[in-house]
């Protein structure tokens, strides 16, 4: 069964593009990743699903109901965490959570306690005094306190320290095991890889790829940066799978997709002064890889 069905969803802001002809489905019980560089249309899609903005064309259903027409009803079972959280001035954490809970016709006090303990959140502090990461925690608890059947997250991990990020992911996986469907937008490939079963990739307002995670995992990109101790030939790293090779003096940097062993073999043949291997963010991959597919 599909929890979300999006058909040819289009949104223009005046003449500027939001999203064009976006279509995909999210199945029940799935953790679905929605990835793309900043400004590609992830938030536009999500905000349309939540009836915060109105589509120019196309339609979307959640739980089989039109997401615009039946928005208030659908929202009972949705938990939403925006990328940046802001709350009312002068409220304590507990007041905000209680206000949030008051919109759902059930007792959420036990959940509030459990979640805030899991996330290490002080309930009696004023929200204004909280750090960005702690505000985010309020957002997480707020989004999950009514045990939503569908959890929608827009760039959820920005501002969370790695430990909290880990806890948060565990929390999401737990909710998922209990039956919640999750739609997660991100521009960080690794967090999508870590959680999701399936992904949609959006670029310049259009969906350019819809894939299972296992297929995407084969596209394992690494960003290499090497300071060599001695001069090496300029084409030393010119292998199949190497993209965006840049050479500045003794520094070689490139994006690699393929069997890592090929690179390590190459590395063993030269004297290295320093070496960095990074997970490239998705934007980079888009720039150097998907730009060819247009």
């Amino acid at each position, binding site marked *: 069964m599909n929890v979300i069905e999006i058909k040819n969803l289009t949104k223009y*802001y005046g003449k500027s593009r939001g999203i064009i002809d976006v279509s995909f489905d999210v199945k029940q019980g799935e953790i679905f990743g929605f990835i793309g560089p900043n400004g590609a249309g992830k*938030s536009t899609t999500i*905000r349309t699903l*939540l*009836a*915060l*903005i*109105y589509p120019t064309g196309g339609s979307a259903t959640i739980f089989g109901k039109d997401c615009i027409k039946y*928005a*208030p*009803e*659908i*929202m*009972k079972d*949705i938990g*939403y965490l*925006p*990328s*940046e*959280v*802001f*709350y*009312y*001035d002068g409220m304590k954490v507990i007041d905000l959570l209680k*206000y*949030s809970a*008051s*919109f*759902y016709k059930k007792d959420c006090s036990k959940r509030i306690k459990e979640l805030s303990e899991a996330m290490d959140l002080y309930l009696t502090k004023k929200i204004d005094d909280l750090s960005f990461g702690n505000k985010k925690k309020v957002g997480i608890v*707020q989004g999950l306190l009514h045990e939503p059947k569908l959890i929608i997250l827009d760039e959820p991990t920005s501002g969370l320290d790695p430990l909290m990020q880990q806890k948060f992911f565990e929390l999401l996986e737990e909710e998922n095991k209990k039956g919640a469907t999750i739609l997660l937008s991100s521009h960080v490939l690794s967090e999508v890889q870590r959680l999701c079963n399936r992904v949609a990739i959006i670029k310049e307002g259009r969906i350019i790829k819809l894939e299972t995670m296992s297929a995407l995992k084969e596209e394992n990109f690494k960003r290499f940066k090497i300071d060599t101790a001695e001069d090496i030939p300029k084409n030393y790293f010119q292998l199949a799978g190497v993209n965006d090779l840049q050479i500045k003096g003794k520094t070689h940097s490139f994006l690699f997709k393929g069997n890592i062993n090929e690179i390590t073999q190459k590395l063993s043949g030269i004297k290295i002064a320093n070496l960095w291997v990074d997970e490239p963010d998705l934007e980079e991959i888009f720039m150097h890889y998907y730009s060819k597919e247009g």
Partner: protein
Amino acid sequence: MNIYRQELRAYRKFTIIWTVSLVGLVLLYLSMYSAIAKDADSFIKLLEGYPKEVREAFGMHLESIASLLGFYSFTFTMSTLFGAIQAMILGTGIVSKEVRERTADFLMTKPVSRVRIVTEKLLAAISTIVFTNVIFLIAASIMANVVKTRDFDGGVFLLMTLTLFFVQLMFLAIGLVISVILPRIKSVLPISLAVVFGFFAIAAFGNTSGEEPMRYLTPLKYFDTAYIMKNGRYETPFVVTGIVLVGVAVAVSYFVYRKKNIHAV
């Protein structure tokens, strides 16, 4: 009614400050009355020294200003002006603040319709205005009875005082519709002051030019205290205009807000 309660809480300080100011103003004015009543003749002479245009712009009527109701009606121009500003700030801010303070994503992804959001916020705004007016009426009545030199018509006093509420309702509606139609309001105060003082300028100009149709342009002139004093009632055409104004503004607000895009900031 959780949004309603939340808004009442959010506007508690604002309402108390404005109520105290309005009450303080009317008490101050009325406390001056005993001195003026004692020396009515020289006070009127003093006012005669002002050009007629200035007197009329400020609603001073020489023939009645020495009576309690006449003096009250003169001071009431200021009360309605302040009251209009309070209502305008309230109307412009109460719905638009969700976007300005970036809390819209929180509120509008809850299982509530936009209609319910506007309704509860509007009810909360009206409640705070009712509160202000009740306190104002009580304080003004007590003070009027303290400073009176002879009995005055309580009915007319009530009719006059109630116009504060009606003027505030109109400015609340005007503020609401402006805030919903404009794509984004960065700051409530300048818009509110500009609109109220704009209407005040039209009112003052209308007073001096003496043209009746001009009065329809500014809600500040829908209730003429001189007319109320003379006839003991409101002028029907203006009451109807006021009701239509509020009705249209509120209806348009609902209509526009239902389809408004709520952008991320």
